[in-house]
């Protein structure tokens, strides 16, 4: 398997309160050249703020957002609700992927029932899961 199998995405966001998980996400994405740029946020509120500020700067709008569920202050689901209030350009260009350690089937249900969520994968992120994300992205968005 070559490390450069992916055609790298321009920008990926990693939203997770756990620093190690953000590190894993960043390292895996970099290692497999999945994206040219990864921006990490330790809080969903900060990620939301970023999207607000960059609404009109196309190159700063991510193609993929890896979103944790259990986070203090603003959870992954709260974040999804806020996203749905943003201009549709976000929903039309961002592929939101839940990346979680949750074992609760209710979380999976909630994610499946939310049309903004395109995929639900369990931690830790690895090559196979990146493959899956790419397939999901291709079936939902045009590159």
């Amino acid at each position, binding site marked *: 398997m070559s490390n450069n199998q992916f055609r790298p995405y321009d920008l990926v966001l990693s939203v997770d309160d*756990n620093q*190690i*998980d953000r590190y*894993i996400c960043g*390292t*895996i994405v970099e*290692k497999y050249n999945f994206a040219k740029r990864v921006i990490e946020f330790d809080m969903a509120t900060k990620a939301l703020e970023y999207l607000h500020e960059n609404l009109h700067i196309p190159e700063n709008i991510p193609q993929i957002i890896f979103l944790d569920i*259990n986070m203090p202050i603003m959870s992954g689901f709260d974040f999804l609700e806020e996203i749905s209030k943003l201009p549709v350009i976000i929903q039309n260009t961002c592929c939101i992927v839940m990346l979680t*350690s*949750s*074992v*609760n*089937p209710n979380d999976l249900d909630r994610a499946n029932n939310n049309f903004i969520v395109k995929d639900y994968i*369990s*931690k*830790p*992120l*690895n090559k*196979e*899961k990146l493959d899956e994300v790419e397939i999901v992205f291709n079936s939902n968005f045009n590159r």
Partner: protein
Amino acid sequence: MENITTPEKADLAYIEGFEADVKTKSDQFINYFLIAFFVIGLLLAMVYDTWKVALIISLPLLSAYYVTKTLLPKSNLYQYVLSAVLGIFMAQFIYQMHGMFEMHFFAFIGSAILITYQNWRLQIPIAIIVVLHHAIFGYLQYLGNDDIFFSQLDYMDLQTFLIHILLAIVIFFLCGLWAHHIKEYANKHIQQNYTLGKLQKNEEQNNLLRKTNLELDKFAYSVSHDLRAPLLSMKGIIDITDMMTDEEITKKHMVMLRESADKLDTFITDIHNYSRNSRQEIKLQMINFDELLNGLNQQMAYMNGTRAVDIQILTEGNDVFISDKYRVQMVLNNLISNAIRYQKIENENPYVKIKVKINSKDAEISIEDNGIGIEQENYHQIFEMFYRVSDQSKGSGLGLYIVKETVDVLKGSISLTSKKNEGTTFLVKLPNNN
């Protein structure tokens, strides 16, 4: 329902409490009545100057009553004594008033007083005394004994006497009847109140239980999440370390680390599943086996440390199958991952064949593998909690136990046929709730 209608010890104690209450209050009334009777005796003594009779009879009567009551406070004997005492008071008053007819009514007053104890038997002593008194004194007077003072009537023939006694008996009977009725009614009422109170208590306990269950569920969920989150981070770091190193020894260590982490992860997930299965209510929904099994198949692809296995899925039947999706998924997940985990290394083409036959009554699911197999003597043990075939087993010892528990909750059945070194087939039958 049974524990509500048949009185238990607690019920009886509750009723006894009420009875004691009735007794105490009645006893208080009786104290006043007895004083009144004594005073009436003294007043009557003034009219016909019968002081001697009044004192000689009243005082022993009062002492008989109070002595019995003091000596045997727990027994009801003093109430029977009271009944006799009231009868004799009547006789005393009749005698004191030289047979004045109105004094006979004291028999009825006594009878009425006794109703308060709600015991029809109390009417018996007074009735006997009244009958005996009337018979003896009436006969004596009839014989011409002038000192008897039974009746002011010049004579009392047998017919008058019989009517007189009959009416008295009717009154005693009625008073006894009412006493009995009141008693029964009161008991019913008490029981009802008690049952109501108990139901209320049950309701409260149920609510508490529901709340506790909910909290436990939340607890189990957050504990398993909090345990699992750092574990998954560790697994991620293991992956990265493994990926970045070329050192053989480190790679070897990473394999060992991953194995341990996987074991712990399985254990945490199993415990979470177990707690979910034992307390969550059944949630019925339509189940599409093709979809479900394909989803599981994809998950299995990520099972670490195992060689990929050829998973074949075959579903038959057009009936809609309705059951608890999460539980069915839990069962299949456990059985399929076991089939993969315990594959035979020497086999060139390890496989898992999953067949599902659905009809309107049930779904028959068979999961067949060509893995290491199970010895027949271990068939029943494998469903036991924490049972493991060997120390080398990779599982938590909970997987099949949870499968069995879950199948039981779904009111289904599970069986297996296996041959050591050849493979195992699990057969699960689940009722269709359609």
